[in-house]
């Protein structure tokens, strides 16, 4: 199957910013700010876009922007020697903004919102799997979706997820387990051939 792990692309976890650039950014250097936003822009946008799946993805661009405004304003207070990595700290801010957004009463998603990434996709099967995954993750409760996306797409450790979502470790593990099971159930029903190939 094309979409199996063998074909899995390299994940793109946000890499760390070098110390000098980080210090310059903390001092308000606009060039360093630009490097930071460029470095973390895609993962932050991807995180928010996935967390808002099926609900308010049209807000992803604005929330991405808002995330970085808050990051740059709070950056002088970020302690690089503290417990949180810069990437985790930024993803935490993005996650909380997205979850807050999901708590708000929200009109239905805009009609022209793309269901999946609007990129040209030649592999039809992969596209079909992608659509099914999107649907399955969109159907998860917000709390489970957040844990799953942070773990599976951004490779946060359980402890980092617990800190980001202000949960205890056990809750993270149980939510992740439930989310995976629910997604597996969904995908098995939506695409029975996935189960046949396991």
């Amino acid at each position: 199957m094309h979409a199996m792990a063998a074909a899995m692309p390299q994940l793109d976890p946000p890499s760390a910013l070098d110390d000098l650039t980080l210090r310059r950014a903390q001092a308000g250097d606009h060039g360093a700010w630009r490097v930071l936003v460029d470095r973390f822009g895609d993962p932050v946008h991807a995180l928010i876009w996935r967390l808002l799946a099926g609900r308010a993805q049209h807000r992803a661009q604005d929330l991405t922007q808002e995330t970085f405004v808050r990051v740059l304003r709070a950056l002088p207070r970020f302690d690089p020697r503290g417990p949180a990595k810069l990437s985790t700290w930024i993803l935490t801010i993005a996650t909380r903004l997205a979850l807050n957004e999901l708590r708000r009463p929200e009109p239905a998603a805009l009609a022209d919102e793309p269901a999946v990434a609007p990129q040209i996709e030649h592999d039809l099967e992969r596209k079909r799997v992608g659509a099914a995954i999107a649907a399955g993750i969109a159907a998860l409760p917000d709390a489970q979706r957040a844990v799953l996306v942070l773990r599976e797409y951004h490779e946060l450790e359980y402890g980092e997820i617990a800190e980001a979502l202000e949960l205890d470790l056990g809750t993270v593990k149980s939510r992740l387990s439930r989310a995976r099971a629910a997604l597996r159930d969904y995908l098995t029903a939506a695409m029975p051939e996935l189960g046949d190939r396991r």
Partner: protein
Amino acid sequence: MTDDDSDDLRDLDLHAWDAPAAPKGLADTVIARVVGADEAIAVTIHKRRRSRAIVVAACAGTVAAGVAGWLGARSMHVTADEFVVATEPQQLDIGGATVDVEAGTVIRAHRAGGELHVVQAGVATWHVPADEHLVIDAGSSASIDATGASLRVETKMNTKNALVMSGAALSAAAVALVGATVYEGQARMSDGPHVTVLSSDSDAASRAQLKRELVRLELALDDVEWLSPSERPDVTIAAGESATIHVRGSVGVELKSPCDLMAHMTRVPGGETTSVPGPVRLKAGKYTYEAYCYTGPSMTWRGTIDVVGSQEGEQLVKANKSSDILGTDEVTTNIDGTVVPGTVLSMNGEPIAVDSDDSFSIDLEDTTDHSIVLRAQHPTRGINFYVFQKGQGGAATVAKPAPKPRPLQSPPAPKCDKITCAAENYAGACCAKLGTPQPKCDAEALVQAGTEATSVGDYKTALLEFAKAYGCKPEDHTRSLAYMAACNSQNVGAARYFWRKMSVEDQNRYLVMCARQGITRAALDAP
């Protein structure tokens, strides 16, 4: 990864669900916003007869100083982290522009790259000189900009969404509708690649509207939001009183005073603060407040508001609410329970009689459109509010059996409805009026359409598409998809229809799909 991952998704390429890249120009936009925030914009208020405009800031301490300073002066400095709330029509100078604002209008301004950027909620008429460039942001890709022009701009609010104020970010992300009329000069209205030039020379071209979501103003303190004008607060607390509010979820609170009030709220613990003029929505937590008049007498009140779960904390009242639906419109509600001896009970200012055995019973009619709030005051235990929110049954402190199940659980089985007929490929006389049988329909395309609808959360459309696909080609896989869409759209009748077609094994396997949506096995098994 160092965590042990016993992951049954490991064999899947979850990245088959690609996310789009960050928007182009993100860094420029972000830096412009942050830098713009550091540049102050002078706001001068003219025609001020009474103190009516409020300058709200992210930091409540700043607000206190700002408002106090403003009351004694004709002008003040407003930074981009602050914005102007007009409570009556007035004229302001913002940057190089002058603006006449109507009551209730909220404006935030900052300067970025030599342009005066504004986010506006409400109605304002702008007079922009030739040496000023005004940009009214109306969403991620929409704006109105003008130089050397006079124009009236109206932003209509979506009343379904709360108007929430933020010191950190008055974002133009969600404008419902923006309309502009140019009286003098020209203005340009942009919506992505579409640009409309509005000119005072042409009546036909002078008006245009942009549809966007509501302007959303977010609070620095995420647990406190302004109530929108269309929402009415659940609980009214006299300024200076302290109270505990027992509620499920959040609660709308208004501090009542003889003047227009500014409340400086602080979360305990944590210390995050925000300032709000008017009713607010509070999430669970403890808040202290300091409220003062920004018009009228110089008065200050302090108190605490503790928002707790309906069954948390010390209880003055044990009450249970139940509702009876008598017909399509009539709903009667009964609340009965007991109180701690010495408790004085009231509802909407009216005293509630408590019997000698400390029990009470209240019957209410037509309670479907608002919350029911009991106020209980005890001489030593203080004031407690018990909020039964609209559409919510159950108990403040459960003292009796759970309320009757909602009708959602067991509606009559569908016989000739849209979904059933689609799933039967419109066979039979009853379904003939809803569609025509399709002998050569494309089940795969219908399943694809249903999957796409599911991926954007449109479960109703998904259900119809899957049902059509099942009618076209009745396969177990399609039936399962239709069943899941029925569960997610909370269509009990349709879920039951597909449930009945499943094997017992499949029923056990897929029960959880509906159970997550509150649809029980009993509802699915119902005749």
